[in-house]
């Protein structure tokens, strides 16, 4: 997508967010709606300005949104899976899985190196957060039985 199209889209998205925020703020009672409504309207105005500017400037160069789309998407998917599994499997189990799986997905093929890094890293995180700071983290699945 060209820079021009991206900026038109970007400006439109922010204009819609701003307009929606202003519309919603109009329903708030008294003075509590005034401030967000003004911000929403200003945001909508700036969004329109970005779009108009892009429309006039006609910058037709391509501006890639990713350097490597498949790897970026894989990382996002793995990240989302990781967050979804944290409450199910427990924090340390899921973290160990993602530290092993994500480099493998990205092409890393040194299992011993990866294993050592995983053990050392999870050990450090456990020492700092659970041992030293005593922070409560989602319980491990194998500790629930």
């Amino acid at each position, binding site marked *: 997508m060209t820079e021009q199209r*991206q*900026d038109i889209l*970007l400006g439109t998205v*922010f204009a819609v*967010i*701003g307009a929606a*925020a202003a519309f919603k703020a109009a329903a*708030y009672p*008294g*003075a*509590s*709606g005034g*401030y*967000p409504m003004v*911000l*929403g309207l*200003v*945001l909508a105005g*700036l969004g329109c*300005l*970005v779009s108009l500017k892009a429309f006039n400037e006609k910058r037709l160069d391509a*501006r*890639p*949104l*990713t*350097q*490597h789309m498949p*790897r*970026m998407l*894989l*990382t*996002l998917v*793995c*990240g*989302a899976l*990781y*967050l979804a599994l*944290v*409450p199910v499997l427990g*924090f340390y189990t899921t*973290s160990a899985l*993602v*530290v092993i799986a*994500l*480099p493998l997905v*990205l*092409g*890393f*093929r040194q299992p011993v190196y*990866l294993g050592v*890094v995983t053990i050392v*890293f999870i050990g450090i*995180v456990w020492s*700092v*957060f659970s041992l030293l*700071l005593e*922070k*409560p*983290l*989602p319980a491990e699945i194998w500790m629930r039985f």
Partner: protein
Amino acid sequence: MEMIASILSSVLATGPFLAMIGSSILGVFIGALPGLNPVMAIALLLPLTYSMDPLVALAMVAGIYNGSMYGGAIPAILLRIPGTPAAIATTFDGYPMAQKGEAARALKIACWSSAIGGTASAIALITVGPLLARATLAFGPAEYFWIAVFGMASVGVLVGTDAVKGLMAAVFGLLLGTVGLDQLSGVPRYTFDQTWLLSGLDLIVILVGLYALPPVLSLAEKADLSGLSASDLKLDNVRVLWSEVKSLIPTWIRSSLIGISVGILPGAGGNVAAFLSYNATKNASDDPKSFGEGNPRGVAAAECGNNADNAASMIPALALGIPGNVVAALVLGALLIHGLQPGPQLFHQNPQLVGGFMVEMLLTSLIILIVGGAAATRVFAQVQRLPGVLLVPTVLVLMAVGVYVINGRVIDLWIMFAAGACGYFLEKMEVPLAPIVSALSWADGRAEHPPRPADQPGGLQ
């Protein structure tokens, strides 16, 4: 005098002192790793500091900030890869010096220059900060409002390439700050009947997402599977002559002044300070053509300039409560975490804490001289042998644990993730993230309801 002694004794107590040393070392490591940056490191660190003594927490922020600003010079000199954006100007002469076999010399000059710039900046903070805070005691809501508008507009216009996008980002940040219960009327705004939104969006959750996830995604895209070989990082031991040190003194003075001036201005960061210092030194030189071909003064100017920005950028943040850059916004976040309200009141209500932080900025600049010495730099350079793909999941896990421990809510993880994904695409579309964070940190009740004179010590009774 009693206050100064009290501040020094609290800063030099075991906890803050160890925190300064440990975080300075960690900061140099982080700066040395291309792809990681001080903002990301401090953002990841802040959630950890919830249960800590505020002086220990701020010592860690100061150490990471100063340490990583020097650490960025290591890959800039050895590989022409700036570890942080502020180290771009260091590559101009640092890398040619390394190619001529003078890498260790360049690193030594960078280390000294960083320490000198950081120290000068901390002295400026210690002297100018309290004076500015005293002057702002006379300010009322109208003055605060216009200073805030100036601060937000400066950050929006000066950061990034497009002023309109910068302003749009700042307004978006202010709008995000309105989510939750209105502090005065108690009306819930933009909560969509979700109880977890009543307390508003947590600054640190958004910050970690915006500043930590985009670099992680970039590292994943590059998929560095092997790291660097040991031979690429070989350094010889060298001595820098006294005559050379003497010749660098004018450069250090000039660059320190430029860095401090840039730091005080909202919106301009270490990279601007480094470029301006580099150009000023080049213009003042008898032999400007030697710049870019391995002139040690180029390294000294860039490193001294970018470190002189560090503490100076805290002056408007601490005195006015208006963050001029993202690290300053993070420091304000750290203060808010500990229930402290940034602004002139802070100097009166918690002089020990503000004074302590200023001294910590000074001491961590000096610690760089020890932890950034030639032998230590040789060790720090080795971190670049780590394959980049291993950093991807480890940073992701640190983000998750850091965010989870703030409120103990899984929903915060998703907010952080969504903020990070948005941040990644916004950066690609040249929308600066700094105005969003600066505005959000300032929007924490103070944007809509600025402090009244009656709220301030010495204000209307």
